[in-house]
C-alpha cells in the first residue's frame, strides 16, 4: 500500500455563530470568531489517498485527476468565498476547521475513482490543523 498526498491552498472568510445560542453564549463560546462580519484565513489542504501501485503506470492514482477533482469540488467552491454565506454546507453548519475537513471529505470521497481517500487535513494556520479519516473512524 502506498500513500500519496496532494496539497492545495485556498483563502476564505468565516465566522462562528449558532442561532440556537443566545448572543452572550455565542460570544462566550466563540470569542472573537463570533464577529458577524467575518475574518479570513489562508487554508492549506492536504488530501491523502492510498492504493496499490498500478504495475503498468507505476501510479497509485492519476495525479491529474486528483488535482482536477480537488479544484472542482473544493477550490472552485471555497477559494475567496465567505464560507457561511456561499458554501451550502455552512448555511446550516458552523464552518469550524473540524466541519471544513468533514465537508471536504464528503465532497471528495464519492468523486475519486481509483484511489481510496485516506485522510483530509486542513490547516487553518500553521499552528492549527484538523485531520478527518472518514465517518466513524
Amino acid at each position, binding site marked *: 500500500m502506498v500513500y500519496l498526498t496532494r496539497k492545495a491552498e485556498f483563502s476564505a472568510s468565516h465566522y462562528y455563530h449558532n442561532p440556537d445560542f443566545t448572543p452572550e453564549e455565542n460570544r462566550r463560546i466563540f470569542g472573537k470568531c463570533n464577529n458577524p462580519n467575518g475574518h479570513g484565513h489562508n487554508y492549506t489542504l492536504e488530501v491523502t489517498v492510498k492504493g496499490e501501485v498500478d504495475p503498468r503506470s507505476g501510479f497509485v492514482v492519476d495525479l491529474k485527476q486528483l488535482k482536477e477533482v480537488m479544484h472542482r469540488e473544493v477550490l472552485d467552491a471555497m477559494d475567496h468565498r465567505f464560507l457561511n454565506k456561499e458554501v451550502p454546507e455552512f448555511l446550516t*453548519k458552523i464552518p*469550524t476547521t473540524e*466541519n471544513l475537513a468533514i465537508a471536504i471529505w464528503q465532497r471528495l470521497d464519492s468523486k475519486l475513482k481509483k484511489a481510496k481517500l485516506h485522510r483530509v487535513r486542513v490547516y487553518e494556520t*500553521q*499552528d*492549527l490543523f484538523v*485531520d*478527518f*479519516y472518514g465517518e466513524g473512524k
Partner: protein
Amino acid sequence: MTLLSGPDSATGGEKLRTENRELTTVFIAHLTRRYRFSASHRLHSADMSADENQATYGKCNNPHGHGHNYTLEVTVSGPVDQKTGMVCNLVDLDGFVEREVLSRYHLENLNTLQEFTQLVPTTENLSIEIYEILQRGFQKAHLERVKLEETMMNSFEYTGAAEPKR
C-alpha cells in the same frame, strides 16, 4: 453508519434519510495545535562513567548545558459537537497547555526540575512527561499524540499505549 428507519416514500424518504444520517453519524476529528517553548538541558546519566557519558551524549554532555527552541504538537480527538462544530474549545486546550506545560518548561533549565532529577532530560523523556501531564489533567477531549521537535532536524512522537495513526 446506521440510518434511522423512516418513510421510504418517493419525495420525503431521501431527505429524511439524509437528515437522520447527519444526526446519527459520528464524525470523529483529530485536532492538532502547535506551541513553542525554549529551554536548556544537559544529557548526563549518573549510572554511567564520565567516559561513557561522553561517548553516549557527545556535545550534549557539556556540563554547562545548552538550549533548544522546542515545538510541541498536541493532537486530541473526539466527536465533533454539533452545537459548536468543535472537538474541543481551543481556549480550553490552549489554557491547559499554557498553564501546565509551557509555563512549567519555557525558559527553564530542564535538569533543575523535579521530574528530571533522576531522569535524563532527553526529548524522548520530555515527550513522555508532557504526554503524561495532558493525559492526567486534560479532560475535554481524548489525547492522541504528543510530538516534540527539538530542532528542525529531530522530532519525537509519543502516543502512550496506542499505535500512532498515520
